[in-house]
């Protein structure tokens, strides 16, 4: 799928192969969560990186994280079958409790460090340092702000049963929108999401954080 046609709904619900400009014969594969596709592409385009392919798994896998490790393994093996030896995984641990790391180790690939994408956007050390203070924070990224309705409101059944909101979010006190880009429309969406959840709102500009370094290092790994 060409970058311009990347649809959030497809990234949320389907496995998507993203065409990268100037990468007609890629030797490096990034296997990523659909929630990171646009951000990875932005880093690639911004830095003029070449020789890379990007395959995304559905972002909805986060609702059943136990399925993530084997889905990633399948992608790695399929890539090896096509002759692509250099593979990097752009998933945080994402609630797999170390099982994704085991798959990466067994398959001989690297993974971006961190427990959640929030952490690598925010900066791993800063995120960890704020853990106590932000224990009640529900994090949104650009993707999640755009997909709040589909992935969170509907995905968690609150469209059908609004009472569930108070069960899920009883102990949360705020929404923290970790913004990758400066987009007033997304800011408004994130604020509206916080209102809907009955939580106070904070916005923190993070940019692409450690994702930018990881993708750039991945680009040079095939040399």
């Amino acid at each position, binding site marked *: 799928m060409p970058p311009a046609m990347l649809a959030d709904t497809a990234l949320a619900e389907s496995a998507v192969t993203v065409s990268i400009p100037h990468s007609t014969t890629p030797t490096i594969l990034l296997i990523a969560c659909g929630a990171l596709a646009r951000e990875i592409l932005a880093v690639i385009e911004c830095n003029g990186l070449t020789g890379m392919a990007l395959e995304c798994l559905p972002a909805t896998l986060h609702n059943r994280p136990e399925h993530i490790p084997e889905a990633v393994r399948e992608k790695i093996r399929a890539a090896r079958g096509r002759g692509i030896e250099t593979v990097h995984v752009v998933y945080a641990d994402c*609630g797999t*409790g170390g*099982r994704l790391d085991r798959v990466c180790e067994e398959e001989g690939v690297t993974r971006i460090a961190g427990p959640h994408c929030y952490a690598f956007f925010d900066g791993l050390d800063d995120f960890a340092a704020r853990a106590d203070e932000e224990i009640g924070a529900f994090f949104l990224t650009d993707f999640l702000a755009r997909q709040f309705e589909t992935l969170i409101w509907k995905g968690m059944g609150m469209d059908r049963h609004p009472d569930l909101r108070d069960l899920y979010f009883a*102990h949360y006190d705020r929404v923290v929108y970790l913004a990758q880009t400066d987009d007033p429309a997304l800011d408004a969406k994130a604020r509206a999401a916080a209102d809907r959840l009955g939580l106070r709102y904070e916005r923190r500009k993070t940019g692409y954080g450690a994702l930018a370094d990881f993708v750039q290092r991945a680009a040079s790994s095939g040399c």
Partner: protein
Amino acid sequence: MSDEEDDIVLSELSNEELVQQMHDDLYDGLKDEILEGVNILLERGWAPYKVLTEALVEGMRIVGIDFRDGILFVPEVLLAANAMKAGMGILKPLLAETGAPKQGKMVIGTVKGDIHDIGKNLVSMMMEGAGFEVVDLGINNPAENYLEALEKEDADILGMSALLTTTMPYMKVVIDELKAKGVRDNYVVLVGGAPLNEEFGKAIGADAYCRDAAVAVETAKEYMSQRMHNQ
């Protein structure tokens, strides 16, 4: 529900039909219908314990199986749990009056740094339904909370829950603290939560990892029966 089901008058059903209907209503998360069903069975002279086990716990067991098999998802399980909780609200004081088999006592809580309690609450409810006395410490518990409660309550079982990869290692801190105080073997330690697995449970020194509420109940029963046998 279909229109046909909407026309069902619970009070006109036989006991067997009513219990079956309550299983369906629990599955559909229909709190008002569960409350009505519980009251009808009690009026018909059913012992509170029989209502609890045959109508509610059995219904929730079916919900648990379909959750495990990927047929039901978290929202549906929560609605079912809410309906069961409402039914238990009627039964609990009656169970205390009439007496019900006591299985043991559990102290349970979500670990320090973690505010997620949906799974823990489900386990608490199912354990109570199975005849365990449950002391729920809530969320974000440091080790000392668990240790104090275990001693004060003279508990048999410690249950710890975590939803985050970053908070699950704290379970080992609690278990190590129990060891340091020389009381680890006084308790059965059960752990659970989405990112955990059996290997992690073993690695931190828990007695068992429980992948869901139904497994927690069965595991707790097995350990309590072993304890009784060894006494």
